[in-house]
């Protein structure tokens, strides 16, 4: 069971942390319409993480709220990429693109998982993810190829994101077991599909993926090794919960 739990934890933690980060834009977005769209997608992410924490609960882990709000940074399995501060809108939009395409592909692969509860959740979130990727693709292609300034800022964001984004595909110690039991086809396969999916969009946006010789995946997140940015995020996120954990919402 540990291999399934490990897979679920990293997915749920990715969604929870990036969902919280993206929600930090609420009220501060570049225009009203985009503020609403980005906030709404952040809520979707939290909802998806809750669905996966619920699966973990069914496997004997604690209640979703307890798991989400009472762990310390070194007990989180999210990719470091998701915990980085929002930076400017170019960085946040680029992370949204790179993360959400990977997220959509991961769920797509898992829709055929032999672990039926996860396959079921994966099929349920299909529509939300389709919109998230549509949103990301539209912004990336628009901003990448709009003006000199927007192009330069998006290229800088891509360069800054790149090695962190590669860290999303950090292999787990259970890869072979997950593959052989047909639960998940593995991080290496996901990474290949991801490269295939993002490349045409980035080309259309006239943006260039950093040269392969410079690739140095920023890993560690899956094993609880995080940057100094995660703990303050967790403190802020769980502040209200910790005042009264038994409060009804």
């Amino acid at each position, binding site marked *: 069971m540990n291999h399934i739990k490990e897979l679920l934890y990293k997915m749920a933690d990715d969604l929870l942390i990036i969902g919280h980060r993206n929600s*930090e834009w609420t*009220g*501060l977005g570049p*225009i*009203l*319409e*985009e503020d*609403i*769209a980005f906030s*709404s997608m952040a809520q979707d992410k939290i909802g998806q993480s809750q669905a996966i924490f619920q699966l973990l609960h069914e496997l004997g882990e604690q209640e979703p709220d307890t798991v989400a709000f009472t762990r310390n940074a070194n007990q989180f399995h999210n990719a470091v990429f998701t915990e980085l501060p929002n930076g400017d809108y170019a960085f946040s939009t680029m992370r949204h693109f790179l993360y959400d395409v990977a997220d959509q592909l991961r769920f797509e692969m898992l829709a055929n998982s032999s672990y039926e509860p996860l396959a079921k959740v994966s099929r349920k979130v299909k529509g939300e993810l389709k*919109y998230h990727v*549509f*949103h990301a693709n*539209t912004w990336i292609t*628009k901003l990448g190829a709009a003006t000199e300034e927007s192009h330069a800022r998006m290229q800088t964001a891509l360069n800054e994101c790149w090695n962190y984004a590669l860290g999303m595909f950090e292999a787990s110690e259970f890869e072979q077991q997950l593959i052989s039991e047909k639960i998940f086809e593995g991080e290496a396969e996901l990474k290949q599909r991801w490269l295939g999916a993002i490349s045409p969009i980035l080309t259309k946006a006239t943006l260039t993926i950093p040269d392969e010789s410079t690739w140095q995946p920023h890993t560690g997140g899956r094993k609880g090794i995080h940057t100094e940015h995660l703990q303050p995020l967790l403190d*802020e996120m769980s502040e209200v919960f910790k005042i009264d954990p038994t409060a009804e919402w």
Partner: protein
Amino acid sequence: MIKSLDPRVTREQIELDNQIAPLQELDQWETYEVFHQKKRGDQHMHVGIVHAPNPEMALLFGKEQYGRRGITANIWVVKTANVFASEYEDQDIFETVPEKQYREAGGYKVMEKINKYKKEQKS
């Protein structure tokens, strides 16, 4: 530095003398009218506007502004500038002289016939 109750604002370390420049006229995106359809086959109903730089983004925003609650089958967006509208100063073209009952449904003595038919069906 601005110290706000909202930690996100404080984190941004915004200088107080950082004046917010007023927007230039037309320093905004165009508007698109959004039409929402609940079920396939239903009429698309006008629900409001969104600001967007192109039709794709208008759809993107229209979906979240007007389609995120309740059921949606389809959304249309139409550039506001492309809507040809009547003038309010011509509102009087919709007024009509009342003595034309022959043009109104109420002008027909059809209820009598309906009632007669209903009565016949009952008996």
